[in-house]
């Protein structure tokens, strides 16, 4: 591997914040000051924590609680639905292993399949886009802007646009010269969703990778060229390792997004189509049929699934999401660069 040590100037530019948390100094006065500032800090973040409690924690706990309740029953005598939902414990969760589980597992595999295929394709195309956007050539601004257009189109609109394209006498069929009924059940429906999803979200990965590319110092490439590395070697040994942190964050974000995919298959193919039903669509369908218990259980399972994937990413691939919790085991230069690049890239999607 090419040595990726970078000049001290660059390190300061990218990661100067790392030196700002000095070890606690011994001495009562200093400790008192730290405790006081800690209290001030707690006070200052408390509004945020309160908001998070109300908008994140409370709904999550309510969903957990709701998932333990069953469906309201119908009284055959009066013809009225009972007022209260029966407490069923973990029955809703146990049901996915029973008869009603077929639909859940179908949705589960659809979700997983879509995530793996779309994120895989998006990564390849996104990196290619980033490499193109990174090149200096005339009309670069135009190319960058046009690559970003699909990302700017709201998913609902792009779902409708692709539905026209995949219509029985739409453009897609005219291009391939053969009538495929894309919106019917079958593997082609999955293909339609994957094409539309990849079209829409590859620019996202492209954008984050571009931000990662821009913080790689030119000197590294110059040194590689002097050592006689060809373009392919430069890509594999310099570009890819250095852009990996940004790429991992992008892929993680996309995975989390793809796992809760809802609107595109819903609009493009339609609700309750077994071929494309995802976990989010299943939960929505249950909720819309006034079965809030099972709906909440599916939503909780999706939440756990997403959580495990995120955790796996952080653990296995070392995606350094929270810059400040960097482990001491890493070499200094590397972790500085990593933090710097993520900080830069993480600002992009919110802009």
């Amino acid at each position, binding site marked *: 591997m090419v040595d990726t040590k970078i000049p001290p100037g660059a390190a300061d530019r990218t990661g100067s914040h790392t030196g700002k948390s000095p070890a606690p100094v011994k001495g009562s006065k200093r400790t008192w000051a730290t405790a006081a500032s800690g209290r001030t800090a707690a006070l200052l973040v408390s509004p945020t924590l309160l908001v998070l409690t109300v908008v994140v924690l409370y709904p999550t706990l309510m969903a957990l609680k709701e998932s333990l309740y069953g469906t309201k029953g119908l009284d055959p005598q009066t013809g009225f639905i009972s007022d209260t939902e029966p407490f069923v414990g973990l029955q809703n969760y146990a049901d996915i292993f029973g008869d009603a589980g077929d639909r859940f597992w179908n949705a589960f595999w659809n979700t997983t399949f879509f995530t793996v295929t779309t994120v895989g394709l998006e990564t390849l195309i996104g990196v290619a886009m980033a490499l193109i956007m990174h090149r200096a050539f005339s009309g670069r601004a135009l190319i960058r802007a046009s690559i970003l257009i699909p990302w700017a189109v709201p998913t609902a609109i792009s779902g409708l646009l692709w539905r026209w394209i995949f219509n029985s006498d739409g453009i897609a069929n005219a291009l391939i010269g053969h009538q495929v009924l894309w*919106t019917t059940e079958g593997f082609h429906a999955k293909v339609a969703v994957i094409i539309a999803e990849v079209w829409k979200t590859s620019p996202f990965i492209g954008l984050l990778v571009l931000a990662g590319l821009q913080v790689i110092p030119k000197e590294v490439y110059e040194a590689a060229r002097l050592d006689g590395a060809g373009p392919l070697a430069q890509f594999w040994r310099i570009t890819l390792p250095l852009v990996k942190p940004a790429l991992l964050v992008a892929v993680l974000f996309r995975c989390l997004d793809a796992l809760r995919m809802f609107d595109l298959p819903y609009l493009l193919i339609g609700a309750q*189509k077994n071929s494309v039903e995802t976990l989010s669509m299943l939960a929505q369908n249950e909720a819309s049929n006034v079965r809030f218990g099972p709906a909440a259980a599916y939503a909780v399972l999706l939440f756990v699934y997403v959580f495990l994937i995120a955790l796996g990413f952080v653990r296995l691939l070392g995606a350094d999401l929270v810059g400040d919790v960097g482990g001491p085991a890493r070499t200094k230069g590397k972790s500085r660069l990593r933090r710097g690049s993520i900080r830069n890239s993480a600002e992009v999607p919110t802009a």
Partner: protein
Amino acid sequence: MNARTSRVLQCSAVLVAAGLVLTACGSSDDSSSSGASKSPSFSGRGPITYAAAKDSSGVVQKVIDSWNEQHPKEKVTFVQLPADVNQQRQQMIQNAETKSDAYTVLSLDVVWTSEFAAHQWIDQLPAAQFPLDKMLKPTVQTGQYRDNLYAVPQSSDGGVLYYRSDLLKKAGVAATPTTWAEMKAACAKVEKLPEAKGMDCYAGQFQKYEGLTVNFAEAVNSAGGVITDADGKPNVDTPEAKKGLDFLVDSFKDGTIPKEAITYQEEEGRQAFQSGKLVFLRNWPYVYSLAEKSKVAGKFEVAPLPGLTGAGSSSLGGHNVALSSFAENKATALDFMKFFTSQDTATTFLKDASMAPPYEALYDDQALVKQYPYLPVLKKSILNAVPRPRVVQYGDASSAIQQEAYAALNGDKSSAQALKDLQDELQKSAAQ
């Protein structure tokens, strides 16, 4: 790092505790008010609201304005809900689940009555106070749950058969087909004409959505079958129902219905008919005025739906108005509902927004028939109509129908197997 971790744990423990307190607060009033009174009293006067789909014609606001002029102290506010029916239903259910009084009078799709009534989200209404005897009987049935009135018909709708009268005439088909066999025979003649080259015979709505439920129910009913019997029990695994489903399945197989019709909703079918690709089309009356402005203007006519041995029966569309159980000022609301479902109001809706009225007399009004030539056919269609299954879990029933009918149309299942599975599914859903 350890110290940091433990602080994080502490923080989250506090948060969890706070959340639990909130949860406890939230759940305290769960099981308090049980069993709403069976005979609601309509008391209280004052401002109310009317919740319905977004109205692009502007007639609803016009009608409400005329009410507001006469009742300055009992004004009605029009709450516009999304145009998508599922979203309307969801917003109304959310409103009911939180026992909010934001919506007073609800505009319900005809298939929601049972569900809303069984959940006691809407009040039972005094049937004697509405002119139900002047309305077409099937429309009134859609507002009933267990023989009690819960919703009053405001508009109706039925399926009709659009056909290319010019081509039928040229091919020497004298009488309009009234049975499926006659329709197929007429198609065979028409398709020999040089100008009908490449045309397909028939289409309806066969995409996997509510439209498929409608078309399946029509096929089954037109062959003498039922989906649910008079007591609301599923009874779809019958030879009659099989004949109905077989008509659709065989038509797909022999090309009477084009292959791509499996992706058709209302609009795709209308476009195919308007561009001259179809001889026969099953659709709603709204197509009439649009087709009059298209390539096929003056070349088509409407007829009642065909059936197995005679005229077929349509599914019923349309909207009813109901009174939210959690609303205030119910006396005003009841008066407004009477006004809103009156024959005068229905005439306005028909004239200005071409909404089919529930009142029988309007279908025979010569001036109106001149404006809407399809009215006599539509009247027949509605009179022969069978409401879609009136079950509490309508969403589940409709999903099951779509699932099985779609599998049969695609050839994934035999029609006998599909009906057997559908019967099982419907029984399971009814037992819940």
